[in-house]
Each structure stands twice: as C-alpha cells, then as structure tokens.
C-alpha cells in the first residue's frame, strides 16, 4: 500500500514531535538526571537545529539524488519552529520561572541569548507566514522572506557554539553541517537540477 502524501505529511508531524514529547515525559517522571530542566532545554534546542538541517536538506536532496520531498518541507520547517519555541518556553518557564526582568536582561546582555532570540523571531515570522493565504498574499516577497531560514539556521548554529564553554565537538558538528548546507546555496547554477527537470520521474 502506498501512503498518500497527505498521510506522510501528517506522519512527519506525528513522528517529528515524538522526541520532544518523550523527553518531556521523562522529565515529568524524573528520569532526566540531576538537572532535568537543562536536559529538556538542551534536547529541545538540538531538535530545533536538527529539523532546521532537515529543512535545508530538501533542496540538495532534490538536486543531487532526484528525490523531490519539497511538499514535506513546510512540516519540517514548522517542526523546527515548534522545537525552538518549546526550547524558549522551557528556558522562560522552567528555567527562569517567568522572571521577565531576568530574561529581558539575558536577551540584551548575553550574546548567545540575543542570537538565539533573533533566530526564534525569524522562525516565528516564517511559521506565521507558512500558510497558503500568506503565500498568495505575499507573492514574490514570500520567497524572499522565507530565505531568512538561512539566517535562522546560521544564528542557531552560532547560538549553540556561544552557549557552551570551550570547543566541545557537538556544536561544531552542527555548525559544520549548516555551513555546508548554506554554502551549497552559493554554488553556481546547479546542473543536476536540470537533470531532475529533464527526468521528472527518475524511476530506473
């Protein structure tokens, strides 16, 4: 049985939200170790980065392998936003206990939080305009606006690097992957894209 794209799209959401829900559940039952708030906060942030990476992978996969998954890109981008928003909510509510003065001071004074907030603002803007109505309304500007995903991904990578002490490998791995995916966009006109256009149904 072949799943319809509509079903697959729903599965992307359902499966994509599992890591966050599972981690939250582990926190509720006190299985996240000595500092559960930090674990939840960090896990959600990392999943935001992972979904940003998946979102950015759709184009190269289409270009290089010929698989066109563009219809699932919106779901992946929205998942990145959901995780980023949950990451921020964890920081705001569980970590800072809604101390808005402390959070405000953090955003202004601490570069890694400033950068993270900028990424969240961008992702929020893109999420709000991810519907069909906005696409029609904004027209050509919609594409321009949604190129901000590149900036959001770069800011997310920088946020992770700045948030840690020293140079542990994990943030550098994320930054490296994101850098490669962004640099890919700067490559001259891709030949492989034409091949995809020439062979819209690349089943051997």
């Amino acid at each position, binding site marked *: 049985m072949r799943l319809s794209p509509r079903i697959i799209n729903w599965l992307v959401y359902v499966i994509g939200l599992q890591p966050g829900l599972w981690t939250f559940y582990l*926190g*509720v039952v*006190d299985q*996240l*170790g*000595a*500092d*559960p*708030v*930090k674990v*939840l906060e960090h896990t959600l942030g990392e999943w935001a980065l992972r979904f940003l990476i998946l979102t950015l992978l759709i184009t190269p996969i289409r270009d290089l392998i010929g698989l066109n998954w563009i219809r699932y890109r919106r779901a992946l981008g929205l998942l990145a936003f959901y995780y980023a928003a949950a990451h921020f909510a964890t920081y705001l509510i*569980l*970590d*800072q*206990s809604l*101390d808005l003065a*402390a959070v405000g*001071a*953090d955003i202004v*004074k*601490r*570069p*890694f939080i400033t950068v993270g907030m900028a990424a969240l603002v961008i992702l929020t803007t893109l999420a709000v305009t991810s519907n069909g109505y906005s696409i029609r309304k904004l027209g050509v500007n919609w594409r321009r606006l949604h190129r901000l995903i590149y900036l959001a991904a770069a800011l997310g990578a920088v946020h992770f690097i*700045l*948030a*840690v*002490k*020293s*140079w*542990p*490998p994990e943030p*550098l791995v994320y930054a490296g992957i994101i850098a490669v995916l962004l640099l890919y966009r700067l490559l001259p006109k891709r030949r492989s894209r034409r091949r995809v256009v020439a062979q819209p149904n690349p089943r051997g």
Partner: protein
Amino acid sequence: MLEIRNEQLRCPVLIRRPADILPSEMTSRSVYMRRREFLAGALSAGVVGGIAASSAAAAPLTGVKSQYVLDEKLTPLEDVTTYNNFYEFGTGKSDPSQNSGNFKPLPWTVTIDGLVNKPQTLDYDALLKLAPMEERVYRMRCVEAWSMVIPWLGFPLKALLDRVEPQGSAKYVAFETIVRPDQMPGIGGFFPVLDWPYREGLRLDEANHPLTILAFGLYGETLPNQNGAPMRLVVPWKYGFKGIKSIVRISLVEEQPKTAWNMQAPSEYGFYSNVNPAVDHPRWSQATERRIGEGGGLFGGGGRIPTLPFNGYGEQVASLYAGMDLTKDY
C-alpha cells in the same frame, strides 16, 4: 568499634550559622536528623587509611566533626556523582561518571615544590595521615549557575603547605591535574577543549584560609573518579572550577600562576573567580542559581534561589579582598 564510631557521630555537631543564611534555607530538624543517621550509617564502617592500595573503587572514609557543617539539605549522592564537569573525561555532565571507569587513582603521589624549604613528593597513604580528616558540608556553586550542597571529607590545605615550609617570596600556589590520555578520553581530539594539564591557582592567603581544603572523599567514601579521585581542592567561596581535581603537583610561586579557564577565555574566567551575584558572566547571570536535586514543582524545578556573595562565606573571607575592585578582579 562500630558502636564507638556511631556514638561519636551522634555527638551534637557544632553548626555554624552565618548571618547570611536565610531561615528558609535551613533544613527542618527531622530531615536533618534523618540525614545524620544516614551519614552515620554510611560512615560507620569506615576507617581512615583502610583503603586497598590498588583499588579504584570507592572505599569508606571517615571524618571527625567539623565546625564547618552547613545546615542545608544535602544534594543526593547520585546527583553529586553523575552531574560533573571534569573535561578530561568529556564535556557532557554525565561524561565523567560514564567515562572515568578506567581511571586508576591509586597508587598516587603529589609533588609539592617551588618556593618551599622542604619540597617533597607524598604518596596517598602519607597524605591521608597528614592531618585529621574532617567532614565539611559546603555549598558548591558552579559558574554555570547551578549549585549543590556536598559533605566533603578532607583537611585544610594549610596543613600540607605548613609541612613544606613556604618561603617568604612565595605569593601564590599553583596546582596541576594529572594528564593520562589513555585513561582520560576527553583529552585530545581535533579541538582540545582546554590546554592540558588543567591548571588552577590561589593566592597564598586564600590557600591558607581555614575554609580551603584538600578533599579525599565525599558522603563517607573516598572520592569517585568523576569527582576528582584521589584528591582535589575545594574552595567553597569560589566557583566550582577553581576546585581542581586529581591533583599531582602543587607549586609555591612568586607570580600569579596561569589557570586553565583563564587561559581559555580570559574575558570570562578571572583568576579570583569568587562567587559574586553582582558580577555576571558573559553567558550567565550570576544573580541566581538552580540547586541541583531540589524537589518540588514540575521537573524538580524548585525555581531559582538567590546567589550569595562569596557563596555565603563572606563573613569568613570578604576581608581577604579588602580594597580590591571585584568587578575588575573577577
């Protein structure tokens, strides 16, 4: 023999209550008594020096009563031993407990040299017998804005320093952690996270302060590897990273020594690193902290508690910094 030791531990312990401990921070009497009973049980089998010389496993270790026993709820042993910064074993909080199993803390020697009249190298047994082992319950405040309350076993560093007779020109004490890449998987890699060995330092008067201890154990046992076996520094009014672990060299020097985190990021980590809620780290507000292992609320999130100047030990140590601008000498 067990009876005697239990008796000893049930003696009323002299509790210091500096004015800066809020009543709300104090542990209720019933909780406190239960804790003492638990500790008594944990300590009852222990004998100082009764440690198999070749074993890496935690061995019982006892301490005499100390006047420096903070009356706050202890951080659970499991949290103290699974939530650690010890980058030689990895940068994740659980890396040290997971990756330090191959580390062999014994046999061990520490060399004390530099501007001293009697430089010497002491082995572990000699160290344990050097001064009476005390149980000290201290707050530990990490620069990452979390904190614990830990029952350490150790004795004042001064006892060791007096033995080597520092010369008049000695102004600072420099410490180094052992470097064993084969047993410490966090060392090496493409981007060494720190310039090994891990280095720390104190001014001589800080090192001689009665609160500064060399710790050999916690919770009635010798230090687990992830907590700095077999011996580490504990300076309770400074951020946790000043408490250098697995020390192999202590040098008395004239110039302020280089310290690992100051070398890595001088704008973030100063030499003094006194706990100071008024001076933020670039990445963390230091005004509040999260007490690890505190129950209550979703996710054990008991919320944040205010950070105290000098981690609550200002009454004892603030005079060391008279006339200094601690926003500059952070």
